[in-house]
């Protein structure tokens, strides 16, 4: 076979009269791959026989680095554990620290945190839905969603000073109060997002091609999902009414009504639709939070943050992110720096375990769609 210079052939593993087995690196630089992660696929034709996750290309030793920084300094590192949805990380870490310290933050700070969390989820959902669309070749839909994501980022910029790495939550509350007129802009954006939903329905969810591609892909039953550590929208898509915000309320979620809508079905289509339902609910939650936003302090006085000393102890804090349960297990030995910070990312069970079951026998064109439907985000595997 003729190949121009610079091209390589697939690595041939074995062959017999009927089949040739190839080793295919799917990612890290594949357009359907989310970040620096990859699967090594043993292929016969376009069918997958075996899969080997190829992690570590993003490994920056977050957990080790956190042991060498002050309690408050870690906030600048933590949002990097999940780039599209950074705030659940910040909040989970701060809540764990506050739990060890045994302090209760002001109500306004809790509300602001919840608003920020919901905004972060919205932005991430748009990216997730766009990811599904993109993996299916619906790039226009993806770009339309990116426009709205950028409008959310504008509001983040006005509130936190940065678009992506907000570095906004600190142990004790948040770093800045809400600027004047900001909530009005947020409500206006909520209206816009609501208006956008029918268009997305038309473009994406009601599209027969999308439905055919997603239906039945990566099916998982409710009991298997629960026993495999699947959380968040992927679990709700199996018909399980589980949501960290409702089950173990944190921030201001105990104060307001949080609705839960289940798509049910357990396949990729159900997961995609679940994300859309969660998106709709998140917009409603933001409206409720803004309506009930109390006055008062936006942070608790915990003394000089640069010399924050957290008493010895440990706590696990979890937050409902756009992908599922994001958890931080923080251990302190009473020092100026954490003794251990252990991160529970929502992508690990699907990305590292379920892939063995699901990808076997799958066609190569479905791999990116399958990953997008489980919202697998490699930084929280490679933390």
């Amino acid at each position, binding site marked *: 076979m003729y190949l121009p210079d610079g091209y390589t052939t697939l690595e041939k593993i074995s062959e017999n009269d009927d089949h040739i087995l190839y080793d295919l690196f799917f990612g890290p630089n594949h357009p359907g791959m989310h970040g620096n992660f990859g699967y090594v696929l043993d292929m016969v034709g376009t069918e997958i026989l075996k899969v080997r996750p190829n992690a570590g290309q993003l490994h920056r030793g977050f957990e080790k680095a956190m042991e060498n920084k002050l309690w408050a*300094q870690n906030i*600048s590192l933590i949002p990097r554990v999940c780039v599209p949805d950074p705030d659940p990380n910040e909040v989970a870490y701060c809540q764990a620290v506050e739990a060890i310290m045994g302090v209760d933050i002001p109500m306004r700070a809790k509300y602001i945190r919840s608003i920020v969390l919901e905004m972060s989820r919205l932005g991430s959902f748009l990216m997730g839905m766009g990811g599904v669309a993109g993996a299916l070749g619906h790039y226009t839909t993806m770009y339309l969603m990116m426009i709205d994501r950028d409008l959310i980022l504008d509001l983040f910029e006005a509130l936190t000073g940065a678009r992506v790495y907000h*570095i906004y939550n600190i142990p004790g509350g948040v770093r*800045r109060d809400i600027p004047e007129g900001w909530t009005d802009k947020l409500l206006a954006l909520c209206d816009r997002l609501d208006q956008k939903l029918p268009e997305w329905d038309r473009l994406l969810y009601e599209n*027969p091609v999308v439905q055919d591609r997603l239906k039945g892909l990566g099916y998982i039953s409710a009991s298997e999902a629960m026993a495999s550590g699947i959380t968040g929208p992927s679990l709700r898509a199996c018909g399980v009414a589980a949501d960290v915000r409702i089950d173990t309320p944190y921030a201001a979620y105990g104060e307001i009504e949080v609705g839960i809508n289940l798509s049910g079905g357990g396949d990729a289509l159900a997961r995609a*639709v679940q994300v*859309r339902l969660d998106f709709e609910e998140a917009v409603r939650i933001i409206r409720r939070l803004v309506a009930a936003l109390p006055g008062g302090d936006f942070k608790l006085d915990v003394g*000089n943050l640069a*010399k924050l000393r957290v008493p010895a102890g440990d706590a696990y804090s979890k937050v409902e992110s756009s992908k599922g349960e994001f958890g931080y297990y923080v251990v302190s030995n009473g020092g100026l720096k954490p003794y251990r910070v252990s991160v529970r990312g929502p992508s690990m069970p699907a990305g590292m375990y379920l892939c063995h079951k699901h990808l076997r026998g799958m066609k190569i064109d479905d791999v990116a769609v399958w990953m997008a439907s489980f919202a697998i985000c490699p930084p929280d595997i490679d933390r």
Partner: protein
Amino acid sequence: MSLGEKSFFAPFATLANLFKKPETIAYPAEDLNVHGKIGPSLKYRGMHANDHQVCIGCASCETVCPTAAITMKSTGASDAELKGANAQRPVIDYGRCCFCGFCVDACPSGSLGMTREYIYTKPSEKEDPLEELVWKRDMFTIEPGNRWADNPGWQCTNDETWLDLDRQHMHHMAATERVGSFIEFVTGFTKEEALREAARCIECGICTKTCPANMGIPEYIRGIYDNDLDESIRVMYETNPLPGICGRICTHKCEDVCAISHRGEPVAIRWLKRYAIDALGPDRVTEIATHAKELFPPTGKNIAIVGAGPAGLSAAYYLSTMGHGVTVFERMPKAGGTMRYGIPSYRLPDSAIDNDVAAMIGMGVEFRLNTPVGEKVSFETLKNDFDAVIVAVGFPGGRSTRVENYDHPDVGLAILLLNRIRLDEEIPVHENIVIIGGGNVAMDIARSMARLQKVKYGKVSICLTCLESETEMPADREEIEESREEGIVIRDGWAPKRIEIAEDGSIKGLQCVKCTQVFDENRRFNPKFDEGETSFYKGTQVVEAIGQTADFSFITDEELKQMGMDRGRFKVDETMESGVKGIYVIGDIVHGPDVIHAVADGHKAARSIDTWLGGH
């Protein structure tokens, strides 16, 4: 939402978007305009700007930087030029900076801010990769200045800062309660309060440079914060052998320059020192203070010190740590000097002095008490019998205003009255008293007299007049406020003219004229009066507290001249050696009344004597 059949026309839905205004922005022809101002948001965390006039070089930004992007670069200015600041400014390596803005939130002076500028690029000029690395490092390493200051972004207010701006409240007895007794009324920090207060320190070290004794303040505060009081006390004794006393009555020049004071209340350095001493207990403190005893073998040299005030005690401690034999001659029955016989016990109880003197006794210093030099032992003998003599006699006498009728028997000198109060002597206390002077001694006598009045008459009636306006008064702010709380009336800006005598011979009161200026432009004492404006303060007793004098009767006038006496004070260089070889002068008689200066002088004299005697 329905998942039904799709309409035949659905694909044309995208056509509607064809004629829409694009959502994208054609940068740089236009820029984002959603934040009320073209460009990024008003809080944007972009490139830094630093006002060098306001920056104090405290390196707080360097400490909190999570990526170690900030280093401090020396400005080359000398410390003398920079009062209350370090001669260094932050330099930021933008190859590392993550734009978190922690540096801004932790800046105590508020000089550092971030701007809305975020584009900073240049094409590389180097071809060699190593050269390019160095070039890049240079290009991306920026000392923030005013370059982008006109476009501010992320700034920090007092509500938002990381620093703890509020001091821990120090517990006092209530004014009505404390005015009735001479018991120490400041009760000290509890452990929780001390830890919280110690955590406020950002360890910039500006205080260390300002302290006359250059105490390692950040280090001992760190010791308190780390709950390692032994280390804390060790650090204190490196530069100050009277920490228990200074922890109560030091004039705390360190707190005036504290970095935190730019935004909030300074760290309570003095009270933290007191906490460390009190919390560890006198026995352990003495043990730590005297641990140096075994380090140096005795040198066989002997030094005489005249006066057991703070300067003399300090010199005695440090000389003995170097292995020299020290004998202190003191005219009073106990060591301590003005600290014991001048400062009232509600500010400095005897136990605090005794605890600190225990360290000197532990070091083997010989105290010859009740031994006034010139009477029981002559100055000549000291010069002959000892290898070196330190004169640390201080200011035991008071100065008089010498206004009309100053020699009336009911007119007293503050320092002498305080002395008698400390010796438990009965002193005359009238029902209405006028005090002249605006310094700490005036406050001491006013508050002491207030206590005596309270005991004797059940009420306080004291009027304090001074030349200076309240902002210029040399007394500590807290002293002025506490005096007011105790019922003392302060009339500032009045100069005493004459003491009026009634027909029966008793004092009627003090006649004053308005003082319009105390210091001239060159900060020299040059009072100006407005004779037209007068006031009269009623009182049958007048106390003068306008200054103190030394007593050098044991030294001949000729020798005093040789030693460098000039208008009541000695002029000496850093070695503290007087004009006569082997005689050193330290303390109030050199620098004026101040405990911490005296301590510093004692340390300096000890070092130079050690060098001169061939020391270590």
